[in-house]
């Protein structure tokens, strides 16, 4: 078990492409940290630098209190699970899991004990004699995890391990990974582009974009208090709505003007915070679940602002219905009750919960 730290870590590839631009990251012992971001954001490069599979152009990486910049992967005491499993095709499941221990000259009894224990945790004991080609995708991924567990390393590294699985199996394996971490408590760094995976697995999520860290925080923190437009838009599904707006004085308070006809009152508690942005062009960020239709029997609450929408598309999902419409050409998604009367091409009275709004400065992309 160990802490992992990145200090001003930079990666510049031969062609001059700067994949990672001086990131700082401290991961605590036993912590499950997920690096998430779109393709090319530098998350996999960061993980591979921690693994020792990529050289570091500048900065320091610490594992368990030691600088490991020049330490080869085998001496970093880490284990890695790859997207395509990377199982040795000519070896049985047992031999795949035992390979690292055999290379480290562990006694045969100890190897068997560890492999059996890992197989029990991962429920793959009946598969130990099989070759990888005789396994399903989910079983292969379990074996890959088993290969990591038997080593009892300081750190687990997962590089998009569920991307090759179908949607149903991905959800199942996600739970398994979380269960394994709860059992073995090894410090874990997990890379994914799937924000749902990131939110469900992580103690802390690191959102990366274009080689920098946009924000580090717990899933709830990132969801409710994003610091940048990128994080606000990346975390959450469906994505947050962003609407160009102008902050205006109104009735002793301030309001967010979206169109000449639509102005949403800002709750008094936020008036001070948004006051300095009066008369400036800003972006209103509001999640689909905070734009909804009100049941006629339910009175509007403080902070709710009414808005009428000409419905474009209705997507019934079962437990909720997504209603898509446009405000001044900008697409907006609202999460409504399944019983919503919304119909395409018809007006629908909606409400925005402005206590959950985010105001974004367009030039810097910072949430104010």
């Amino acid at each position, binding site marked *: 078990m160990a802490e992992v730290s990145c200090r001003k870590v930079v990666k510049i590839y031969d062609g001059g492409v700067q994949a990672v631009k001086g990131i700082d990251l401290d991961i605590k012992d036993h912590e499950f940290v997920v690096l998430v971001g779109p393709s090319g954001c530098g998350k996999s490069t960061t993980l591979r630098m921690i693994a020792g599979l990529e050289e570091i152009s500048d900065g320091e990486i610490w594992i368990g209190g030691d600088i490991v910049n020049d330490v*080869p992967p*085998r001496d970093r005491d880490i284990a*890695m699970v790859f997207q395509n499993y*990377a199982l*040795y095709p000519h070896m049985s499941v047992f031999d795949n899991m035992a390979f690292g221990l055999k290379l480290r000259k562990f006694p045969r009894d100890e190897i068997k004990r560890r492999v059996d224990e890992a197989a029990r945790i991962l429920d793959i004991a009946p598969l130990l004699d099989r070759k990888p080609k005789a396994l399903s995708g989910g079983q292969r991924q379990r074996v890959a995890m088993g*290969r990591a567990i038997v*080593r009892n390393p300081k750190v687990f590294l997962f590089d998009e391990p569920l991307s090759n699985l179908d949607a149903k199996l991905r959800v199942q394996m996600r739970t398994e990974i979380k269960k394994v971490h709860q059992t073995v408590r090894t410090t874990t760094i997990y890379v994914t582009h799937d924000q749902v995976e990131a939110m469900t697995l992580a103690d802390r999520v690191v959102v990366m974009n274009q080689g920098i860290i946009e924000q580090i925080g717990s899933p709830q923190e990132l969801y409710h208090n994003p610091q940048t437009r990128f994080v606000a838009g990346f975390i959450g599904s469906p994505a947050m709505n962003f609407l160009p707006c102008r902050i205006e004085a109104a009735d002793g308070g301030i309001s967010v003007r979206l169109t000449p006809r639509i102005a949403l009152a800002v709750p008094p508690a936020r008036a001070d915070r948004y006051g300095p942005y009066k008369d400036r062009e800003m972006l209103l960020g509001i999640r689909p679940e905070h734009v909804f239709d009100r049941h006629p029997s339910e009175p509007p609450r403080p902070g709710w602002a009414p808005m009428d929408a000409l419905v474009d598309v209705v997507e019934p999902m079962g437990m909720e219905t997504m209603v898509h419409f446009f405000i001044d050409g900008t697409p907006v998604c609202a999460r409504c009750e399944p019983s919503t009367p919304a119909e395409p091409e018809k007006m629908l009275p909606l409400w925005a919960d402005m206590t959950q709004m985010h105001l974004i400065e367009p030039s810097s992309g910072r949430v104010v």
Partner: protein
Amino acid sequence: MSASLGAVASGMPIGRRHPKSRNERSWALWCSYIALGFFAFIYLVPPFYEVMTSLKTSAEIGAEKGTPWIVHHPTLANFWYLITYHNFQIYYLNTVIVTLLTVAVSMVISVLAAFSLSRMGFWGSKTLATGVFLTYLVPASLLFIPLFQIIGAIGLINSYWCLVLIYPTLAVPFCTWIMIGYFGSIPKELDEAALIDGAGYLQMLWRIFIPVAMPGIIAATIFAFTVSWGNFIYPLAYLYTSNQMVLTVGIVSDLIRGDVFEWGKIMAANVLASAPPIIIYAFLMDYYIAGLTAGATKG
């Protein structure tokens, strides 16, 4: 998908081929069979004639009457003569020694070279890999004169050891090229997983890459075997006494005496000399094809 939809739209049951496409397929198959039959005939006639002649007596071979394609009085006398003929035994033994050593040396060099060129990614490795292949493009018949001087200088003229030295120079470039393609088709994550598991490069090669790349290695081995077993020009140029000769030159120099061609024995010798490559090809053909096509079809 679109084909199925099209079939449904036109009222045709899914899974049944359109008559036009069935006709096209049947035409293509007929053309393939005719072409394959033609080439099989062309290639099989010489060995057939060889086997027939090897089973004839000299009198039958020399007879002007009757068709030469059929044996009227089959005999194994030619084979028995060769099996008990000391020189032929020497040629066979020399060929086996030269070939085994050539294959061993070529495979050790080409597997190590291919692994380092394809997986270790050092500076200039790509240029070097191309350079290795370019050396294969130099015709062997151009090299035997300058090589004659080198072999002479180190005192190996008229010694089959010179072939053990020369043949790998012919086999290694192509074997390395085959192996580079095969190693290149193995996912990068496999060596990364091995590195993290604690393997060094040699362990990685021995315990992961060689077992995984076995079809490629077998393909390269067959190529090295063929280069060594069937080469004619080098032994003809460098070897001139019977005790050093290999099969290819031994047969023609020993069984053609002046203007006397002992066709029965020559053909029987050819059959015996062809047996090992045929057996090896027959057993390992699937590996050979898999090895040659690996780089073309995988990631």
